[in-house]
């Protein structure tokens, strides 16, 4: 593994498979009466979150604790960031206390790359702006593999706010790297220009995207990142691009429905679908812990670049 996990872009297919296979072993630890192994004893992991997060922060923290790392959380609302400290200064001050890893969530794309250059600690990207969210894509791939055994050749439809989604970017990189056929769909205002260059098919309607799909992944409408009016109303969005029971029927009979959360029920997904028999949304959350344990374990080893030097 490289020093930092900044995005799926840095991972080779072999490294992706190594993480997914290690996560299989980690999943079993979560099923034991004593859900803890001594592996990262004495390692300090700082969770530095500049954006609100329930799932990702909790998931990382549980993963760290199950591996016996010492963890601490810095939520920006209670930190010196409010006094005007820059990200770089905050990072260098944390770095001065010699943690082993920093898990960073930040609203700016590239924030993790900045820390990567400044810090000796290993940086794990827990979502940076509209850029990447690698552990989410890894847990999505893990969940798909649990149901479909392989990712190669699957039709995966990703529908929703494509423009603002770091989850989309990480998933596109990962799924195409492992050989899935990816279709995306969303309102034209929310489809990034040139997205076809990432090796995906753009469908003008959700119906075309989900037809015969093995996997349907919905993306949240990220109103907090929207600076203009991208579509007329949430109700109209649901009518045109929402995942409904009727649309599920167009997909393969064994389709799985995914959502990275948090969900807007009745916007990108109908409640009947989210809670329905095809939904694996809560499995994704459960698998997130195992995948993050795998990443933390593998990152605690040697650095590839240093070994070569």
């Amino acid at each position: 593994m490289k020093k930092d996990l900044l995005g799926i872009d840095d991972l080779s297919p072999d490294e992706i498979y190594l993480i997914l296979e290690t996560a299989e072993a980690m999943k079993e630890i979560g099923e034991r009466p004593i859900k803890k192994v001594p592996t990262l004893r004495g390692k300090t992991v700082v969770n530095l979150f500049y954006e609100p997060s329930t799932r990702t922060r909790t998931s990382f923290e549980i993963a760290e604790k199950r591996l016996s790392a010492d963890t601490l959380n810095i939520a920006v609302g209670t930190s010196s960031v409010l006094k005007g400290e820059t990200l770089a200064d905050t990072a260098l001050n944390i770095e001065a206390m010699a943690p082993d890893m920093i898990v960073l969530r930040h609203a700016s794309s590239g924030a993790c790359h900045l820390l990567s250059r400044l810090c000796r600690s290993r940086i794990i990207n827990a979502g940076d702006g509209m850029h990447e969210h690698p552990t989410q894509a890894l847990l999505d791939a893990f969940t798909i593999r649990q149901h479909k055994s392989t990712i190669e050749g699957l039709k995966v439809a990703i529908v929703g706010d494509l423009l603002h989604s770091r989850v989309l970017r990480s998933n596109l990189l990962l799924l195409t790297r492992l050989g899935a056929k990816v279709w995306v769909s969303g309102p034209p205002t929310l489809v990034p220009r040139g997205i076809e260059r990432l090796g995906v098919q753009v469908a003008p309607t959700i119906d075309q995207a989900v037809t015969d799909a093995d996997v349907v992944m919905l993306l949240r409408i990220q109103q907090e990142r929207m600076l203009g009016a991208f579509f007329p109303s949430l109700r109209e969005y649901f009518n045109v691009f929402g995942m409904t029971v009727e649309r599920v029927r167009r997909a393969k009979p064994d389709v799985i429905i995914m959502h990275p959360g948090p969900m807007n029920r009745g916007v990108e997904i109908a409640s009947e679908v989210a809670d329905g028999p095809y939904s694996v949304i809560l499995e994704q959350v459960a698998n997130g812990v195992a995948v993050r344990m795998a990443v933390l374990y593998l990152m605690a080893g040697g650095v590839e670049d240093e070994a070569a030097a």
Partner: protein
Amino acid sequence: MPVVMDQDRMNRTLTRIAHEILERNRGDEGLALVGIRTRGVPLAKRLAVIVRSINQLEIPTGALDITLYRDDLMRHAIGVQPVVRSTDIPFSIDDKRILLVDDVLYTGRTIRAALDALIEFGRPKVIQLIVLVDRGHRELPIKADYVGKNLPTSESQSVQVRLQEIDGRDEVEIQE
């Protein structure tokens, strides 16, 4: 390099150990075999088959991966992490007589890690250790209860156990 145990010899050795298990535990119920990955697992399964053929006793069998409990994990900062594989113990070990199985007993560090790992699953009544080969050079106070073969070696040598299920043939070889 000398092959010190061939297939025939290995079969007879495992049969002898199976008899010893039954003798020491008096056909006791509550026995369970746990193989340490990688080669302890097929050895444990073979012992279960042999015991069944001797007196129809079904012994449940599990697999233990000790990687996350190794004492050298975070010490060599350079190099990739060892591959972790799944632990699969599909029964409660509480109050069981656990027969822990590995191919080679050397420094004892693997067994130390395995004991730590096992204890997290419950509180067995007894843990007994079965090894196919004991090559000496212990670094920890650990001793096997059943030994297939005592093999005096120098530390510069290595002992290679090959099993049909993994390597396509059964043999134990000493390599310089």
